[in-house]
């Protein structure tokens, strides 16, 4: 026993076992059965028909591109909001502690409630419309609009705190000395920011971008409630298929969505060539 525990390989496996083992059984297993299911007819024979439907039907193809659109747009808008917010939060201001607790609230709000909020505020003839109506103004359509602006707004609302949190920390992790060094070497505050701080914070920022992208792309409730009825993302179509009991179709669509997310991840890894070892952390001795 003692010898076994001394063996670092055995230790490693023993330590990994609870978490990874749990996920293997309760996540990997079901996932595998879903993968197999996506290739099976009801009678058990092999088929590609569920994938074929995804790539031949107009609504599905549009769903795929809509999913990507709903993944990309919120990232861009969130980024534009989060970076300035992160820079502001670094400053000292009154009630900073309270603020840093409160601004994270949206992270814990379920998507369906976010959708409800958008309707309550932006629905045509709703609160904002009534507010500006006496001024003779009309709001653009933000719920069910063809460009999915309402969806993007809602996703951004949900994602900005997450992104801000990560970007704030990414900037905070840069030693003050490096910033000062850049300034003494003649870089202006703006140049220091773009040439020194942004590249150093980049790993954190890209991670935030990727996770936000995956999160928005897979979200179901928000596009279902505030998105246009015509262009529905794959996630919404998937729930529709589930409701009709076509599990195998659900599996196939889930696989396509996951595959897309995972390949974006892998692309990121190959670009940063960090896959494989992970020797960068942990002390060997």
């Amino acid at each position, binding site marked *: 026993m003692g010898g076994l525990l001394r063996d670092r390989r055995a230790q490693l496996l023993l330590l990994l076992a609870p978490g990874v083992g749990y996920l293997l059984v309760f996540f990997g297993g079901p996932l595998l059965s879903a993968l197999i299911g996506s290739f099976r007819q009801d009678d058990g024979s092999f088929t590609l028909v569920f994938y074929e439907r995804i790539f031949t039907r107009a609504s599905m193809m549009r769903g795929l591109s809509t999913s990507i659109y709903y993944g990309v747009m919120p990232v861009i808008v969130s980024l534009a909001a989060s970076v300035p917010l992160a820079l502001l939060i670094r400053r000292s201001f009154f009630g900073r502690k309270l603020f840093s607790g409160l601004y994270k609230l949206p992270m814990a709000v379920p998507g369906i409630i976010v959708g409800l909020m958008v309707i309550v505020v932006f629905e045509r003839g709703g609160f904002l419309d009534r507010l500006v109506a006496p001024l003779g103004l009309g709001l653009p359509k933000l719920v069910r609009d063809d460009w999915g602006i309402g969806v993007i707004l809602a996703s951004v609302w949900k994602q900005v705190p997450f992104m801000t949190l990560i970007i704030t920390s990414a900037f905070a992790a840069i030693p003050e000395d490096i910033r000062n060094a850049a300034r003494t070497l003649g870089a202006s505050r703006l140049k220091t920011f773009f040439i020194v701080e942004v590249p150093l914070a980049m790993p954190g920022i890209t991670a935030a971008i990727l996770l936000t992208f995956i999160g928005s792309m897979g979200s179901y409730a928000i596009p279902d409630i*505030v998105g246009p009825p015509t262009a529905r993302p794959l996630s919404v179509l998937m729930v529709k298929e589930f409701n009709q009991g076509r599990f195998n179709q659900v599996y196939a669509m889930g696989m396509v969505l996951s595959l897309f997310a995972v390949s974006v991840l892998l692309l990121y890894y190959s670009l940063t060539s960090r896959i494989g070892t992970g020797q960068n952390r942990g002390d060997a001795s």
Partner: protein
Amino acid sequence: MSTKFLAAAALALAAMAAPCLAADSNMKNLDFDLSKVTRENFYDIVVPAAKAEGSVTMYNFAGSFADTWKELITRFEAKYGIKVAYSDVKGDQANQQLIAVQAAGQDSPVDAYFAGGGSYPLLSSKGVVGNISLTSILPNMANYDPELAKTVFGKPHGGSFPLVHLNQTAIGYDSAFVKAEDVPKSFEELLAWAEKNPKRLGVTLPAKGGSGGGFIYSVALNYLSGDCRKQLTDYNQTLQQAEDWAMQSKCLDPVWDYYRRLLAVAELTNGNADTLNLINNQQLYMGTVWEDQVMTFLGTKQLPDSFRLTLLEKGQVGSGDAMFVPANAKHVAAALLLIDMAISKEFQLWKLETKASRSPRTDVTNDLMPKAVQEHVLPQSVYPRLSLPAFWDMSTALAEALDEKVLNQ
């Protein structure tokens, strides 16, 4: 004395007959002889068995029905002393749950399930519906609509899937904005009105709400004739067959043309409630609606008092929701008793008055409603004259084809 004896006999019989009963029906947990039950001896056999079971689990798929069933349960528990374990569920997910349970060969977690009428084809094809001819053995179903007693939206169900609530899709409008003489009477007039009042007509996306699904099937019924109509109303088709036909048939071209013209001037909405909210916000003046949901929204002041309903000539589809005993339920007798009470005249009348929930009983009619309520429901001039039975599988197929042929082109 005789009741007690009968009950004992029934239990003894059940104990002996259980294995063979399980073989010829899909109710393996029977503790009484179901095959011996008739309308006449129903209470004699079922009441003692139900009391022996002691409790019954009920699902309700419709959020708006929670208080309705609470009333039923209060009455039921008071009368029989049998505890009801009641749950509100999401219909689609509960259906999938029961399908999964059935596929795994386990006991049903629910004994009486109030489910969407449109879910019968799915549930029955997966063997979830218990093979019990409720409509021929429940005493309170003696006055049941004979058509509905055998079929549900064209599908024969052998009495196992009786509707206990009927509802009707309709065209709703705010009479403050739509003058009485402008109220459309046909699909053509509706289109004309929409073209004259762009973006003031709300059409629920068929995939996202029954008022839209009912509407697309109504449009198809309106425009198709001859062989095409025969195909459209052939209830023997499976969902897959209906989809294939809807995807390919030239018959439906007028429907697609109608939708193309309609959607150019109408607002496509994300659900039944979405349409009603927009009407309340005075963004829309007219839309596709459910009659009973309108009642609910009026009751909570989410619609203006000036809201009115109508049906278009050639008819719009009506639907209904059923209460059935799922296969391999554990408390069958109590479930039968509960369903029997749900369809009783007193309860159906109460439900009609408070919820505008129409009854499948032939002896519960519109004129029993209070005058104040009648203003907000479909007038007698159109209902039930223009009510057509829904065919939800076809409606689903049309909705999918609409997706491919109109919405995503």
